């Protein structure tokens, strides 16, 4: 087997990990399994694509539309990503306001909120399909050549960038959650929301912060996946099971756990493609999920189920 499988797995795993972090945060703070999270990735990718469509012409007019250094995209993409992340955040906050927040206020059971997220995810995905059609779209048309990176492995500059961006974002988020006052409040709400109120924490504000972080990371993950593969309305749906499996494998609520879980799933998928065949790739996450539930339902860094 070629060592290439390692780097392929890590690259896919970085995207899954980044998406799973958002999922694990909303899971532990809002306390429900959010089936719309995959669609946030897809929406983030499409929103970024749309903005970059507008920006592209503008930047080309200014003469800075050319690809940056070794990468396949110009300054338009990072700028569009910022705008796309902002729009994705707005989308999740609206969804929380009109749907999840309403159900929370009525004291609806967790499972009702899960069901609402399931219905919303179908609707969100189909709206994307209606607006953009089911045809795949691309953030860049540039071709990239994979460079040797040692140990017989090759990767394109874009691929290496996604790994670096993931590492940077996860480190930053980890510091925020463990060191800052906002992070402290988030951990407190995840342990006991009603006690958090007694301590003087505005739980609604913490929930909004959680959506902001989750949606922002989802957008970055969606754009990374769109950059390396392609953008389709169903991309988020196809990633949803790997995201859940990664979050549960890492232990719900654990940020390093979600990243590690994502990398493990990515690697397992890459090995499956090599050994068993590409057509079984989508089943890997299910096998991992079942194994975790049998062996260690709390996950690698989990506290309680």
């Amino acid at each position, binding site marked *: 087997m070629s060592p290439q499988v390692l780097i392929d797995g890590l690259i896919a795993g970085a995207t899954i990990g980044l998406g799973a972090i958002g999922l694990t945060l909303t899971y532990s703070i809002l306390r*429900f*399994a959010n*089936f719309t999270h995959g669609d946030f990735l897809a929406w983030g990718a499409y929103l970024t694509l749309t903005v970059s469509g507008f920006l592209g012409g503008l930047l080309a007019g200014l003469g800075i539309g050319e690809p940056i250094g070794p990468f396949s995209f110009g300054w338009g993409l990072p700028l569009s990503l910022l705008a796309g992340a902002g729009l994705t955040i707005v989308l999740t906050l609206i969804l929380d306001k009109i*749907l999840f927040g*309403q*159900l*929370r*206020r*009525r*004291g*609806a*059971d*967790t*499972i*009702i909120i*899960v*069901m*609402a997220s*399931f*219905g*919303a*995810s*179908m*609707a*969100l*995905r*189909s*709206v994307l*399909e*209606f607006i953009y*059609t*089911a045809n795949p779209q691309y953030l860049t048309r540039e071709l990239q050549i994979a460079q040797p990176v040692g140990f017989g492995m090759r990767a394109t500059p874009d691929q290496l960038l996604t790994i670096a961006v993931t590492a940077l974002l996860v480190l930053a988020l980890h510091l925020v959650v463990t060191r800052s006052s906002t992070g402290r409040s988030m951990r407190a709400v995840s342990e006991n*929301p*009603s006690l958090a*109120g007694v301590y003087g924490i505005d*739980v609604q504000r913490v929930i909004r912060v959680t959506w902001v972080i989750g949606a922002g990371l989802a957008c970055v993950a969606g754009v990374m996946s769109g950059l390396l593969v392609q953008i389709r*309305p169903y991309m988020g*749906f196809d990633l*949803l*099971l790997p995201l*859940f*499996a990664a979050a*549960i494998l890492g232990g719900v609520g654990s940020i390093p756990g979600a990243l590690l879980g994502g990398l493990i799933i990515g690697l397992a998928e890459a090995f499956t493609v090599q050994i068993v065949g590409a*057509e*079984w790739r*989508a*089943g890997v*996450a*299910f*096998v991992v*999920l*079942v194994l975790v*539930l*049998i062996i260690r*339902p709390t996950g690698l860094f989990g506290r309680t*189920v």
Partner: protein
Amino acid sequence: MEYLAYGAFFLTLAMTYSIICLGLNVQWGQTGLFNVGVAAFVGIGAYTSVLLTTPETADRVGGFDLPIAVGWIGAALMSGLISFFVGALTIRMRSDYLAITTFGIAIALQLCFQNLEPLTGGVFGVGFIPRAFSGIQDDALLFNYANLGLATLLVVAIYVVLEHLARSPWGRVLRAVREDETAAQSLGKNPTSLRLQAFVLGGAIMGLAGAVQAHFIGFVAPANYLPMMTFQVWAMLIVGGSGNNKGAIFGAVLVWAIWALSGSLISELFPPDQQARAASLQIVIIGVMLCLILLWRPQGVLPERQSISKHLGQRNET
């Protein structure tokens, strides 16, 4: 004449959805278990029955040429068995783990339908499935009526059995477990085992429905068992009224009608090249409807008789 045949065809499909919905009602309405893999349990039933009843084929495993009734029973048993494994794995854990795991099994089984070609016929599936009343197939109207009669009979039979079960001591304890697990436990009832029984029963009914549907439409293919189906069935149950068997049947017919009508409306309104795209609007309609019902009338059109499920109640304010 054509309308009558179409009407019978439409209603027969609605009846098969009613059966799925009744199965889901045992899991959700009576027990509070959220199954996000309905399509998989329906599909496994369909494929099982097809394997048992089709004539022997060269490029495929089996084709055991057994009677349709045997296929139906096999379908229910197989779906029940898969439900047992999924349930045994997750029912002890927090409620949304079951949702995630059933979502996962739907994806895994969908892959199996597509890739286990010697067993399932791959992406193209299996056609020429033996149909009930195939002797009168040339008379479309009579054939459709006969099938509608059979499907309706099945719905009624399952309805009667489920109503009987709901009133039996078993059904009462099941509801007690759903409403107040601790209290039920203190009465010496084992909630996990009861829930598992209900989950298996519901799964078996879904498998039976899958078989009935497959033998009626005459072919199986992976595309028939997409998450879309799960979503439709959920919309049916929630709209009709979870916990109420009549509501489950009513919801199935109503949502199936909305689906069929919005489908034909779209084919009227949009040019042919835009229709695939416009079809996604159908899903948006159902998705929004599901959310609106959960928000504004969580008990559905026909609410449960006894008491409105605690899932919808005003409990802990946070």
